[in-house]
Every structure is written in structure tokens, then in C-alpha cells.
């Protein structure tokens, strides 16, 4: 949930999404869901000469499972806040991921 909330604070920011087929797509993050599926507007494929396949596409939906990285603007993120939320969240994670039976 934590990472999902981070992405929600990044809507309308410009991000670069790198897919597991090595496509790099730059665009404005319009929405994200719990599976981290992403909707981008005004997209721009890097190296459009090599990848002309999507010249006619302006807005797109990207499935979360095929994403490798998302490069986000550094100034859009408060790292201290992230760390505190993660530390608090990690107690939540104890409940979520199954314990090894001791």
C-alpha cells in the first residue's frame, strides 16, 4: 500500500517508465492502481527511430507486472517521510507476510 500511496502523490508529474522489454516511455503520470498499473499521458518513446511502433499513441495504460523501473523526479519525493512511513509500515508487514513457524 505504501508504494501505491507514493505513486498517488506523483500524479501529474513527468516520469520515465522502463519496461521489461527495454522500452523507455516518458510521460505524465495520470493514475495508478493497487496493482501499480499506470496510466501515462502525452507519452514519448525514447529512441523513436528504433521503436516507431507507437508513434500514433498519445495516452496509454501500462500493466504493473511488466514494469522494471520508474524514474521519478527527485524533488517530488520527501525521503525522510518515506523512511518513517516504511519503518511504521514494516510493523504492518509483519502481520502481512506469513511468519516462519517457530
Amino acid at each position: 500500500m505504501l508504494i501505491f500511496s507514493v505513486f498517488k502523490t506523483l500524479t501529474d508529474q513527468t516520469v520515465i517508465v522502463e519496461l521489461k522489454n527495454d522500452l523507455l516511455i516518458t510521460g505524465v503520470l495520470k493514475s495508478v492502481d493497487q496493482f501499480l498499473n499506470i496510466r501515462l499521458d502525452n507519452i514519448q518513446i525514447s529512441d523513436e527511430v528504433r521503436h516507431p511502433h507507437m508513434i500514433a499513441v498519445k495516452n496509454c495504460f501500462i500493466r504493473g507486472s511488466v514494469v522494471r523501473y520508474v524514474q521519478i523526479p527527485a524533488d517530488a519525493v520527501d525521503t525522510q517521510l518515506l523512511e518513517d512511513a516504511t519503518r511504521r509500515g514494516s510493523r504492518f508487514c509483519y502481520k502481512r507476510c506469513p511468519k516462519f513457524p517457530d
Partner: protein
Amino acid sequence: MDTSSAGIQEPFDLIRLSLNERVFVKLRGDRELTGVLHAYDGHMNLIMSAVEETIMVVEPVEGAPHSQGSVNYVKRKMEMLFVRGDGVILVSPPSRT
């Protein structure tokens, strides 16, 4: 400092103790990252800053089998990065000794 005294009951404790530290991440696809860890979740999705990515690329040499191809490393720097957890193999905090 031996980790068991540092209160490692769960593997994720190792990651929690690495928050705001520079960590090494090994990813599928012969990729490695080093960067400062700011957030993670149960899927090992990560948010890191000041990241350097190293990709090991094996260029096939004529006649030589794939394993003997010439290896070179492609490096890339990224300021703030989300890494999807399903690609993560290993995370190593800075050595504590």
C-alpha cells in the same frame, strides 16, 4: 557486529536496518544497482536515490560460444528510482563490520 545481536528476527529486518543507507541490489537480467534505500514493501518494491545501475552485457564473439563472448558493463545513473520487486534477487546492506 553480528546481526543476530542486532535483533534480526525476520529477513525484512535486514532491509529495515538499511533504510537511508547505501545498499547493493542484484536484479534479474544481469543487472546490479547501488543506491540509498528510502522505502520498500513486502513485494521488495524499492524506492532508492542516487542510483548507479550496472548491466553486464555479453557480446557474442564470432566463433566463440556464448559463454566466451566479450563482457562489458554498461553503467547508468538515475536520481530517484522505483524498482519493481519481482525482479529483485538479492539485497545487501553496507557491511556492518
